[in-house]
């Protein structure tokens, strides 16, 4: 129970750290680490503006998404429970996409369609890397491959640069942001928090389960920042090759873990 | 008025004859069975033609003497068929079959238009040529039998081939079936029901008679393999034609060829089960096919065309006939509740039990192909909206009676086989097997 509260509180710090790191690497001062906390606080105080076309789904989605992502925290302990975690994330995504469509604007629709497109191809990669983890072999190569596959999948899931740009509001490029476009005030805050928690969960899985010591968390965060800096956002239909690459890595990790098990 | 009276008289006559049949001492099971089949279909046809001919006469299509001639021909036709089945001398049987051809020629050419006369001419010429071959066979057969003590197997084989080709023409087996679609599509509807329902069976009866004799000398496999060959070939030809058929009555004619092929296949297999199935199929097919020809007759009378493309929404314009045809079609293609499904399955089961898998799978393949063809064609005409220029008229009661009478047989035999009918079949089978 304590771990749950800690993660919720600690999550914005991680994303603040990553944005700060990105700016420093570009030799700019950038906002402080606690900037996400300030944003959340501001949103919580603001009033909400809701489009008239939306239905009750639009109002309930923020709570559902946050609940699903938050409850996923309880399932990051053993590789076995990762399957439920993936399903919980698909629950969150399902409602977020619906909310995107509900606002009757083409941006929301575009974001939802792209989100569904990317995530449905990512799922097999996630499951394969979970399978590799689950085979729980001792061979280093298998867990390394599984880690990279999971890392690539994490980038796609948490809408990081190579797949989707978090900060932009340019309608042609944004995927995750497009669905949150219509939200404001308190619901936007919850959704932002949910996204940050999801990101932290992924980092914890990679650090905790594969290399089983949490100290590696900041190292992976740095890695994320580095990737964000070095790569540019891919065209949407090139993302399939990106996913295919991650998929091949996952398959290799499974093969290696099987071979590892036999040798 | 006279015509209707004549119609009812013929119906009543046949109604009386059927029970009388059972008191005929001299008939053996096979003849009794075929006579029963003939009379059942005759009764239905008489019932149906009563209304059909009266309507034709009122609409001025045929003159008064022609209508009277119809009834004369109708009765002569049935009498000659009964003679074929009843008589025990092979020569006289041949003459009776020849007589049936000659009489039914007029029924085929009844409407005296180009198509009818052409069909009638082809019918007589081809059937006479075929029958003459059968005569040669009969003569060779009689020589082989009454000749020297030791029977020459080779001669009997030749004789049986002549018989099979001869009577096969009359029965509509594959290569010699060419007259059948023309004759059945041009004939008067009740006549074409009789033609395909019963006439083909009489020549099957003749073939059975001869195969009993031949089997007693040479054993069943010679005739069996020949019959199976012809059966499968008829199935193949019928399947081919049914798929691309445009004319409703021709399609029914080809389906008769298919069912005759099935019966020949059943007989050819030779096991008691398959012969039982074949004989059972004789009755089922007779009932189902005449039902469908009556239905087709009503459709053609209403739509004035045989072409599938022009007939639409039969269920809307002719509600009663439409449902009857729908049920008849489902029976014809062999769907469970109806009796044809059981007879086809009995024959298939016999084929599988006998171990001839190739024959069984070919047989099943052709049945499915024909199933697809018939369902495709008839669903085009049965369903769909009512064409606007047709008005829905109330259909006469007596023709409805004919439909229900036949339908009763198909459904009844499907569900429960009455005792005496079953015993009749079993004794006929034992007769054929020469037990």
């Amino acid at each position, binding site marked *: 129970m304590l771990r749950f509260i800690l993660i919720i509180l600690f999550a914005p710090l991680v994303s603040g750290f990553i944005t700060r790191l990105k700016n420093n690497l570009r030799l700019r001062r950038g906002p402080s680490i606690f900037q996400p906390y300030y944003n959340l606080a501001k949103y919580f105080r603001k009033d909400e503006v809701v489009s008239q076309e939306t239905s009750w789904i639009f109002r309930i989605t923020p709570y559902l998404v946050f609940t699903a992502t938050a409850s996923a925290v309880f399932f990051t302990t053993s590789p076995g429970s990762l399957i439920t975690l993936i399903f919980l994330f698909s629950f969150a995504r399902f409602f977020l996409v619906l909310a995107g469509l509900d606002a009757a*604007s083409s941006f929301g629709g575009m974001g939802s369609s792209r989100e569904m497109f990317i995530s449905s191809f990512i799922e097999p990669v996630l499951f394969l890397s979970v399978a590799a983890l689950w085979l729980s072999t001792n061979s280093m190569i298998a867990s390394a491959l599984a880690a990279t596959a999971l890392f690539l999948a994490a980038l796609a899931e948490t809408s990081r640069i190579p797949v989707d740009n978090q900060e932009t509001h340019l309608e042609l490029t944004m995927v995750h942001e497009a669905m949150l476009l219509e939200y404001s005030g308190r619901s936007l805050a919850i959704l932002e928090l949910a996204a940050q928690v999801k990101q932290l969960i992924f980092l914890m899985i990679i650090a905790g389960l594969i290399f089983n010591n949490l100290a590696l968390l900041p190292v992976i965060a740095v890695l994320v920042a580095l990737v964000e800096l070095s790569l540019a956002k891919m065209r949407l239909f090139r993302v399939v090759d990106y996913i295919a690459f991650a998929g091949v890595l996952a398959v290799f990790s499974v093969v290696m873990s099987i071979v590892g098990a036999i040798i | 008025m006279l015509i209707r009276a004549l119609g009812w008289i013929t119906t009543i006559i046949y109604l009386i004859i059927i029970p009388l049949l059972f008191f005929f001492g001299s008939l053996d099971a096979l003849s009794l069975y075929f006579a029963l089949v003939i009379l059942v279909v005759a009764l239905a046809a008489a019932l149906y033609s009563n209304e059909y001919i009266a309507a034709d006469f009122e609409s001025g299509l045929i003159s008064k003497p022609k209508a009277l001639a119809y009834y004369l021909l109708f009765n002569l036709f049935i009498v000659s068929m009964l003679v074929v089945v009843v008589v025990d001398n092979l020569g006289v049987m041949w003459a009776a079959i020849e007589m049936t051809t000659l009489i039914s020629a007029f029924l085929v050419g009844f409407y005296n238009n180009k198509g009818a006369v052409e069909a009638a001419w082809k019918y007589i010429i081809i059937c006479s040529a075929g029958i003459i071959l059968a005569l040669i066979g009969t003569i060779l057969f009689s020589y082989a039998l009454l000749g020297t003590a030791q029977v020459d197997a080779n001669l009997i084989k030749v004789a049986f081939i002549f018989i099979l080709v001869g009577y096969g023409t009359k029965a509509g087996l594959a290569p010699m079936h060419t007259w059948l679609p023309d004759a059945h599509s041009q004939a008067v509807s009740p006549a074409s029901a009789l033609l395909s329902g019963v006439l083909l069976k009489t020549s099957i009866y003749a073939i059975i008679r001869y195969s009993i004799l031949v089997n007693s000398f040479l054993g069943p496999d010679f005739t069996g393999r020949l019959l199976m060959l012809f059966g499968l070939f008829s199935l193949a030809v019928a399947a081919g034609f049914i798929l691309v058929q445009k004319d409703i009555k021709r399609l029914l004619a080809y389906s008769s060829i298919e069912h005759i092929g099935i019966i020949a296949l059943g007989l050819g297999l030779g096991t008691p089960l398959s012969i039982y199935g074949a004989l059972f199929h004789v009755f089922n097919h007779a009932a189902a096919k005449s039902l469908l020809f009556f239905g087709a007759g009503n459709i053609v009378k209403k739509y004035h065309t045989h072409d599938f493309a022009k007939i639409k929404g039969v269920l809307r314009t002719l509600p009663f006939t439409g449902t009857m045809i729908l049920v008849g079609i489902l029976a014809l293609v062999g769907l469970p509740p109806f009796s044809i499904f059981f007879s086809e399955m009995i024959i298939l089961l016999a084929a599988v039990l006998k171990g001839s898998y190739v024959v069984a799978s070919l047989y099943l393949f052709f049945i499915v192909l024909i199933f697809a063809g018939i369902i495709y064609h008839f669903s085009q005409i049965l369903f769909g909206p009512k064409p606007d220029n047709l008005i829905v008229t109330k259909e006469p009661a007596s023709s409805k009676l004919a439909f229900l009478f036949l339908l009763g047989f198909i459904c009844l035999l499907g569900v429960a086989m009455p005792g005496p009918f079953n015993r009749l079949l079993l004794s006929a089978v034992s007769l054929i097997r020469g037990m």
Partner: protein
Amino acid sequence: MGWFLFDPLSLFFIVLILLISFPAFIYSLGYLKGHHTRFKNILTQLAMAAFVLSMILVVSVRQVFVFLIMWELMSLLSYFLILSDKDSPKSVEAGTIYLVMTHAGTAFLIMAFFLMYKVTGSFDFLVIKQALAGLPGHTKDMLFILLLIGFGTKAGIVPLHIWLPYAHPAAPSHISCLMSGVMIKTAIYGLLRFVFFMLGINALWWGGLVLGLAVVTCLVGVIYALIEQDIKTLLAYSSVENIGIILLGVGASMFLVKAGLPVLAVLALSAALYHLINHAVFKGLLFLGAGSIYRATGTRNIEKLGGLIKTMPWTALFFLIGAMAISALPPLNGFVSEWLTLVALFGGVLGLSSGFLKLFFCFCAAALALTGGLAAACFVKAFGIACLAKPRSQQAAAAKEVHWTMNFGAGFLALLTIALGLGAVWVFKLLAKIAGYTTGLDASAMNFSPGLFTLQPVGNISLSPVWLALLLLVIMGVVFILLNLVLGRSKVTTVPTWDCGYYKLTARNEYTATGFSKPFRLVLSFFLLPYQRSEKIKESFYHVKSFVYETNTKQVFNEYLYAPLVNFTFNLGRLAKNIQQGSVHIYLSYIFVALFLLLIFMGRF
């Protein structure tokens, strides 16, 4: 009387049939109200009752021949139900394709049954079961292939599935709910009864073949469902996909039984059975929802719907629950059965010895995951485009809530999805017993759920749907209360959606179903072979008056497998046609040539 056999397998299916036909019947009361004349309604109701009865008989009868008759009767009755509105040529064509395909499938069954009769000498299930034990291997393989094709046609396994997207949408909705929910399952019953129960698994490749077919069926079904516009065809394709998932479970258990892993085999089969009943429930719910939408708006094309959540709140809610269940979202039943199937496959990966088999099971698990993802996308599209945002057509705007009986039927099934989701542990115990009975392994020893609420089938993987639901509710409650208490009720102002500030948003600005599935169409173009044409109608060089965009995809199986086959048979028919040239002379020569040939080859007969 020796006609019926009520063993656990049959009882399970009878319960399933009754469970779905009860709400379907209530639904039909409302659905048929204004639809046709009174007489026709009674006729349809009677036909439906007969249809349900024939299904019950199919699953409970004991004689093979009677099974065959009931099987054909079931197809015949559903044929009539498909043709309930006779006027549209489309439903007539659908009926014909359906009847012909099922009959062709049944032909294989007939061959298999008669072969069984030849070998065992009796039609009774149990007698055959004993007698089949001693059968040589290759006859068993032969029987298996025939049974698989026969039942596969009815279940809708991929190469034989083309009748399903035609037949199910043509039938009235409560009938297609029954057909999709239950009739396809009788084919699975057939497979279980004849292959598992009577024939016994004879070789490893059986399981492998079923798994392979299942993977293909899953993916093809979901891909076609994804790009479909007509809501009922979409549901029909998704039935194909779910049959694939069920067969994944069945195939895996076939494989594991032969590979000597009884616990996993029972797990896999009970996961398949679980998904079977789940699919019956939520597919029935979705079809009833689609039926209500069709009754209210008169159209089935999602492109023309929209905003139904406001005009038809209850139908939209139940449709949402159905969509959530089918996309395997956690608390509901779809999630539990998909989770179980995944765990069974992963268990297989762990349990199996040879590396290649492990990889094959992993590949199947990945395929299942991909299907799950695509199914979620498909049903998000279906629900989102149909029910949310602004109505795209006049009919959608004028839609009114349907008769209460229709919603009662849908509501009953919605409650069922939740109940089956939460009560997973007890349901699974029951199914494990049934699976044990079918595969012949005694499942009593296997303990799948230590606690009262948790399922722990294999190793350290465990799931407790009840705790999960509780967790979700608690967190939701806490967050809601926390926010409202601490920050007070937030002031909400409703304004039109942001329209970049210069003109009012209309329904045409919304995202369409075609647009939503465009990424998938492009990525999967190797399979869908999309055709695309766009045309600008210009007023002048600079101003475009209107823009025409047309796209469709090719049905690969129809185009390249069935169309050539049908054309070939018809050409063959045409070839045979010129036997009948018309001239008497040719006909006469046929007779004499036949005679001549026979005389020459007389020796061989």
